[in-house]
């Protein structure tokens, strides 16, 4: 009942009223009276539930009301605001638009007297010059202007102050009298001037408005003001504007500081995050410095490390990391920023070595080295923060401002100190970790060294007591001897040693009574399989050492070395035997020690030197011809230096003992290690003087042959059967009229042989070539010349055979005998003629002559019985005539032959 009664009263109130309730961060309408519904577009039900912002959308009054509501709820006291213009978006009646309102926010309390609702009452406060009486004006003035802590003022249409309270004079940091002579524009900060002017224009155009802007006091202090402007109307004419200025500088600064600190915290956290995640690498620090430097608006951020010089004991500082803004040039590569003597920068080092920050501004610095640095690096102000580790200055972090001489604020310094502290922790952690890691590694190395030396090494280490019994045996006994240490401990060492070596070793060990250490000669030691291993031992007397109390025996298995030495001796013997079998000198050159071992049958046979001379270190290079030595050395260096080369062949002149020079051919095989470096050169040196002389002679013979080929009319041919190439001399073209081109065909010559001679010639040549005993070949045949003429030739050739008797080369000469053959035929013809003549002489001429002689014999003996004398005379005459006729005939025939010969010519 009571509630309804109150609600009825509330509904009937003649002022627009709303009841707000705080719900979360918002203030929402829970009740509205009839009056408010009449001026707003919303009906009663629509307005319920709307928030403050929805009731007064985009209006400056909202923050004021929120502050007021908070104040009312916290104090449970009424709060009054006004008069203000309310910019109702949803206003129903236009007359209400320019009304001024006094706002009263009244707490509605619950049973516990806690304010739970706010009664929001609007009272019309429209200023009306005609209606307002003087008293009300005075009261208003007193209440709203004179006593108001905010700046209240009025401006004419030009912006000149026409009235002002002390509040605005205080904000402007100028006397009230001075202010009333001024315009508002000089107080506007340049960047906001246009914005402020626009709001002023709105005010004098009749639109009340509120805004926030930056101003400068007469003393140059920045002020952030919340300005409300209301048009001043006299007789419905706007003559200026009222203004209310609320100084919210501190609020904004606080917000800024808060934001800055928040940012600092974020940056610090980011900085730490980077250091933790990525460690203290230069790249990480550059990234972190970039973030921090930009945060504190520095132009350069850097880290210097301080190191004590072992020699001079002086502290040297060096820049390790640097970040710069676009206003500063990097100095990280400046050599003067490295190894800088701290003594020369006492003004810096003073506070830093006491773990205090250092700040400086250029204009505060006297003439000193630091000032020079400021000027060189265009530094206006500097802040250095020490990095202190274990009470020593480890380094420092620095910040340079190259644009302003800056006073570093405490907040900045504290923030950066915190940052430097975190950095120090990171460095300290890293240093500790590094030291720990180094110690661990050293320990690990020592353990591995011990393990390598004693447990897994190639040496057998044991400790003997004075009787020669093993007290300790290293695990290496398993690898070396196949014996477990337990198999040896407690037993006499001499039980394992070859009987033939025991006495000698006992004598050698006896020396330990007088000397600390004894190295034994090689001896035999029985392994697990009963085989004898060759060992070499160093025994050290450590009986007096409390940690050992025994004789430490360090034994090395030299069986392999011993066997290798025997093998090497065997190889050397083979080398010597090989050298005896050859005229060559075999050598083995150790390139690492420059030692050469030479094997030779008899140098006297080769160069005439004695063995002593040969074995001298510089013997070989000192006898190489001086003209050949540089080239030889270069070739040797080039080939030995080339990892791909494994063979070297050289030729040079080598001085004999009689001063003459032999021609030597040296061929060597290079042995390289895994890295490709040449470590040995094994080769043979051959005296090729005789061979060279033969080659020279052959060369000369070839030259002569070439000349002979040019000089002769015979066609000389040189057939290389290995390459199947035939070289022919000029006669090929000049005598046989063939072109050079035709010479290229391999069966060319054969194809030019007369078909009737081809088979015979080929058969003859094949037979000659197939018989290893035959070195000459000759054949006569006919060929067709290049111009088609037929020629008779005699082809003679010499064959050069290899050791197996195969023909490797044939050199021959083709003689054109066509002319001589023609002459011979002629001679043969003549001979036949002469034969015929001789025959005729014998038979035809001598027949009557012989008859005549026989008849004459009858005359001589006067024997006319077989033939009467007259008949005899008649026959004699007949025979004589016959002879005469025959002679006449012969002369006639000879004359005919001569005529024929002349005609042929």
């Amino acid at each position: 009942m009571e509630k309804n009664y109150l609600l009825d009263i509330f509904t009937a109130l003649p002022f627009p009223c709303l009841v707000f309730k705080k719900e979360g961060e918002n203030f929402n309408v829970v009740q509205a009276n009839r009056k408010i519904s009449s001026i707003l577009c919303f009906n009663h039900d629509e307005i319920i539930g709307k928030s403050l912002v929805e009731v007064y959308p985009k209006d400056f009054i909202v923050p004021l009301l929120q502050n007021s509501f908070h104040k009312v709820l916290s104090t449970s006291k009424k709060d009054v605001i006004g008069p203000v213009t309310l910019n109702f978006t949803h206003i129903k009646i236009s007359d209400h638009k320019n009304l001024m309102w006094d706002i009263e926010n009244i707490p509605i309390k619950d049973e516990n007297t806690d304010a739970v609702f706010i009664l929001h009452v609007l009272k019309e406060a429209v200023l009306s010059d005609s209606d307002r009486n003087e008293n009300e004006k005075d009261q208003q003035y007193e209440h709203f202007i004179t006593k108001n802590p905010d700046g209240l003022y009025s401006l004419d249409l030009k912006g000149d102050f026409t009235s002002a309270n002390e509040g605005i004079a205080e904000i402007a940091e100028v006397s009230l009298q001075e202010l009333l002579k001024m315009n508002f524009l000089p107080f506007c900060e340049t960047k906001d001037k246009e914005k402020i002017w626009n709001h002023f224009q709105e005010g004098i155009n009749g639109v009340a408005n509120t805004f926030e802007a930056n101003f400068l006091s007469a003393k140059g202090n920045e002020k952030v003001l919340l300005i409300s402007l209301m048009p001043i109307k006299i007789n419905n004419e706007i003559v200026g504007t009222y203004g209310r200025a609320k100084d919210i500088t501190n609020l904004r600064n606080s917000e800024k500081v808060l934001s800055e600190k928040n940012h600092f915290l974020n940056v610090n956290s980011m900085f730490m995050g980077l250091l933790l995640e990525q460690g203290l690498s230069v790249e990480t620090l550059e990234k972190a410095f970039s973030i921090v430097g930009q945060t504190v608006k520095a132009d350069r951020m850097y880290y210097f490390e301080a190191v004590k010089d072992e020699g001079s004991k002086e502290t040297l500082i060096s820049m390790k990391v640097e970040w710069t803004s676009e206003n500063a040039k990097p100095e990280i590569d400046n050599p003067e920023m490295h190894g800088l003597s701290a003594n020369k920068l006492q003004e810096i080092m003073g506070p830093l070595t006491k773990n205090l920050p250092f700040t400086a501004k250029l204009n505060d610095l006297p003439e000193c080295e630091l000032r020079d640095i400021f000027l060189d690096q265009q530094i206006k102000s500097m802040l250095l923060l020490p990095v202190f580790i274990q009470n020593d200055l480890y380094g420092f972090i620095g910040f340079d401002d190259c644009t302003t001489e800056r006073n570093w604020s405490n907040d900045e310094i504290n923030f950066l100190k915190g940052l430097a502290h975190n950095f120090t922790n990171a460095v300290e952690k890293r240093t500790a970790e590094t030291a720990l890691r180094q110690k661990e590694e050293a320990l690990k190395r020592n353990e591995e060294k011990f393990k390598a030396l004693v447990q897994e090494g190639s040496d057998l280490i044991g400790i003997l007591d004075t009787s020669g019994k093993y007290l300790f045996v290293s695990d290496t006994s398993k690898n070396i001897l196949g014996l477990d240490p337990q198999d040896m401990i407690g037993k006499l060492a001499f039980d394992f040693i070859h009987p033939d070596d025991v006495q000698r070793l006992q004598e050698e060990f006896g020396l330990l009574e007088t000397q600390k250490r004894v190295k034994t000669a090689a001896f035999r030691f029985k392994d697990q399989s009963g085989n004898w291993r060759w060992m070499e031992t160093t025994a050290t007397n450590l009986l007096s050492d409390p940690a050992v109390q025994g004789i430490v025996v360090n034994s090395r298995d030299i069986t392999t070395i011993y066997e290798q030495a025997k093998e090497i001796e065997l190889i050397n013997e083979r080398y010597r035997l090989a050298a005896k079998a050859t005229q060559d000198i075999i050598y083995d050159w150790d390139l690492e020690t420059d030692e050469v071992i030479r094997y030779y049958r008899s140098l006297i046979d080769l160069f005439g030197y004695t063995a002593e001379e040969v074995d001298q270190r510089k013997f070989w290079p000192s006898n190489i011809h001086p003209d050949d030595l540089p080239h030889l050395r270069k070739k040797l260096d080039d080939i030995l230096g080339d990892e791909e080369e494994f063979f070297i062949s050289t030729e040079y002149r080598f001085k004999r003992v009689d001063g003459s020079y032999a021609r030597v051919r040296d061929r060597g095989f290079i042995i390289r290690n895994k890295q490709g470096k040449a470590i040995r050169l094994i080769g043979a040196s051959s005296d090729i003087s005789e061979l060279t002389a033969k080659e020279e002679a052959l060369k000369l013979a070839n030259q002569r042959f070439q000349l002979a080929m040019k000089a002769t009319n015979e066609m000389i041919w040189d057939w290389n059967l290995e390459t199947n190439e035939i070289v022919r001399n000029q006669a090929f073209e000049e005598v046989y009229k063939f072109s050079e081109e035709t010479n290229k065909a391999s069966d060319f010559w054969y194809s030019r042989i007369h078909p009737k001679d081809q088979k015979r010639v080929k058969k003859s040549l094949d037979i000659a070539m197939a018989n290893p005993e035959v070195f000459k070949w000759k054949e006569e045949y006919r060929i067709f010349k290049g111009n088609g003429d037929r020629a008779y030739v005699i082809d003679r050739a010499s064959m050069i055979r290899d050791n197996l008797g195969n023909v490797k080369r044939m050199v021959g000469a083709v003689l054109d005998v066509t002319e001589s053959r023609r002459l011979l035929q002629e001679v043969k013809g003549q001979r036949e003629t002469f034969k015929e003549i001789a025959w005729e002489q014998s038979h035809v001429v001598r027949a009557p002559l012989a008859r005549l002689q026989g008849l004459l014999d009858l005359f001589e003996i006067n024997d006319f019985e077989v033939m009467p004398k007259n008949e005899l005379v008649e026959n004699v005459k007949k025979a004589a005539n016959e002879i005469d006729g025959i002679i006449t005939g012969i002369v006639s025939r000879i004359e005919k032959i001569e005529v024929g010969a002349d005609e042929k010519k």
Partner: protein
Amino acid sequence: MPTRKSDMEILIVDDDNIVCMLHRNQLLRSQVPYKLVTCSNGKQAFEYIRSKKEEVNSFLVLLDINMPVMNGWEFLEKFKEKSLDTDIYVVLVSSSTYRDDKQKAFRSDKVIDYVTKPLGVSDVEKIKNLKEIKSYFN
């Protein structure tokens, strides 16, 4: 009763009648004891020998080279073709002093000498003392 074979006959083979007469005269002058027969060519001589081979043991033929019908060489060739199973000794009596003729003559196993015309007494004496027929004249 069988007829006794005469030891030898001497054939003068030449186409020149005067030469045949001169040969005959020289043989007679040297008192050769055998029958002298004259033939004018080789063919005639070959036919004579073949016809007489049963009656005569041996024939000494004084043979000229250059003859018609069958010359001396052809006569010698004829004996190579056909053996007559009788001893035939040929002395070439030619006017030729040509060396080739002499060399060629001695290539036949029937020829025992070569005599250059005219045939003289000394030539006949020399022929009589040739080792092949010496026994016929002692």
